[in-house]
């Protein structure tokens, strides 16, 4: 089977349009798919995947009344027309923020949330900006009152959860966040030119594979080969879901650092909304396994979540603090990163790649092949027709 596959790709007829791909390379490329994956389901959220919950979540996502001043919804920063981010270098809530607003594409498949993994569930993470005085500055009382007093939302709540909104404010805040999570988990990025190539390569369809441009193919070879980018940007979403220090400056302003994952783990442990708490709907305990075992390491200082790369060309700026404006800047960083800034006792995972102009161009071409224009979204259904 493998020999036949290699023989097929060794045929000279279309050699100008298809690079030689070894059996090992085909296997590694195959690990970046298939796409899309099955719909995300979160056992810690009892309305995950439920249509009524998704509908309620979409209404809440766009409802500015969740915020303290009634002026800022989730959609103010996570804008559909900006690939569920805001197009800004760094986020802006009631004040300017220190980190970039992450895109919500494929967020339902994540295991850690926020740049530092301070959230261990999408619903837990969705509570943070609502309550954060720098962002929406809302409160549990405000959210719960909205669910009780707005007739349409109250009806949507009852349909989603099977009971009327009661007097437990914290419970209602969590339920609102679970509806928000159910909606966000439906935001799955579309198939891309890379996916067509990946599927053709794995299937041995030489003609279809050859439709993928040579710069993209060269960039992909670099990505999974010399660049070793897939050590962290692994799998169908191009992330292993964990954290890394890639040599970005720690300081957010003179004398103040962003400790990254180190602080994220501490915040997670202190949160009443983590998966070890009373609001986890998963009786098996399986969903809490990472939280239960996560280890706080000195090396967590300055680490940030490895972002997925799907739609990466559509969601500038880059890095947790928006320090790079373009994909070209990102590739230049990996080409020239100072080894003095990176601490590793062994072979460093991030090292200056010393890319040529051609290699840099190819790598960017490959990354852009992970982009695709999403189809228009239908208007949300009425909550209670």
């Amino acid at each position: 089977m493998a020999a036949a596959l290699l023989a097929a790709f060794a045929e000279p007829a279309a050699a100008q349009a298809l690079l030689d791909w070894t059996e090992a390379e085909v296997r590694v490329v195959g690990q970046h798919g298939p796409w899309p994956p099955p719909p995300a389901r979160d056992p810690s959220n009892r309305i995950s995947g439920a249509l009524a919950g998704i509908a309620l979540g979409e209404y809440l996502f766009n409802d500015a009344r969740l915020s303290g001043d009634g002026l800022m919804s989730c959609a103010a920063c996570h804008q559909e027309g900006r690939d569920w981010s805001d197009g800004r270098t760094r986020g802006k809530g009631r004040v300017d923020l220190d980190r970039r607003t992450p895109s919500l594409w494929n967020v339902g498949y994540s295991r850690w949330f926020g740049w530092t993994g301070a959230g261990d569930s999408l619903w837990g993470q969705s509570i943070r900006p609502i309550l954060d005085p720098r962002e929406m500055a809302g409160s549990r009382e405000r959210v719960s009152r909205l669910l009780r007093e707005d007739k349409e939302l109250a009806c949507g709540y009852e349909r989603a959860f099977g009971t009327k909104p009661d007097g437990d404010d914290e419970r209602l805040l969590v339920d609102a966040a679970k509806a928000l999570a159910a909606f966000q988990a439906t935001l799955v990025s579309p198939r891309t030119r890379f996916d067509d190539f990946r599927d053709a390569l794995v299937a041995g369809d030489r003609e279809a594979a050859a439709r993928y441009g040579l710069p993209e193919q060269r960039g992909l070879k670099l990505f999974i080969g010399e660049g070793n980018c897939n050590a962290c940007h692994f799998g169908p979403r191009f992330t292993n879901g964990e954290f890394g220090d890639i040599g970005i400056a720690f300081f957010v302003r003179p004398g103040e650092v962003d400790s990254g994952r180190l602080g994220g783990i501490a915040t997670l442990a202190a949160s009443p909304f983590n998966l070890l708490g009373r609001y986890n709907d998963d009786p098996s305990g399986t969903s809490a396994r990472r939280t239960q075992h996560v280890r706080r390491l000195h090396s967590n200082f300055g680490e940030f979540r490895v972002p997925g790369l799907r739609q990466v060309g559509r969601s500038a700026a880059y890095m947790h603090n928006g320090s790079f404006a373009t994909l070209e800047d990102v590739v230049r960083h990996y080409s020239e990163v100072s080894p003095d800034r990176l601490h590793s006792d062994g072979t460093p995972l991030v090292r200056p790649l010393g890319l040529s102009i051609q290699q840099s161009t190819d790598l960017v071409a490959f990354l852009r092949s992970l982009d695709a224009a999403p189809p228009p979204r239908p208007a949300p259904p009425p909550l209670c027709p």
Partner: protein
Amino acid sequence: MRLLAALSAIFFANAAWADCPLDLGRGSGLVIFSDHYMIAFRPDPLRIEVGEPFALLFNVCTKSGSAGELVAVDAQMPEHKHTMNYHPSIVSKGDGRFRVEGLVFHMAGHWELSIDVRAGEEIERLTHDYYIK
């Protein structure tokens, strides 16, 4: 085949080890040993995926026939000198059986699993190499 024969010879040459249950269900497990210990283990699920939590089931046997204790399990990537981002927990199931939860290999490549066991005062470390693709 030669390894199997060698293992069998060592195994059956010692009465205490002959009682060591190597079958951990769903076929069998891997076996590693030292002068004092024989350890059978297998992952659950059987296939370890990059970034996915898994457990390890252990049977810890001693040459003397006394009860062996699994003290610690950890893993690191020798090339990069980093550990897992998770600290595994050990639950004793009695009779030298243990279940270790909370392991995650977050990158493809070579991982060295370290297994610390004790049957008295001294702790001994045994290792096993995993190559995750």
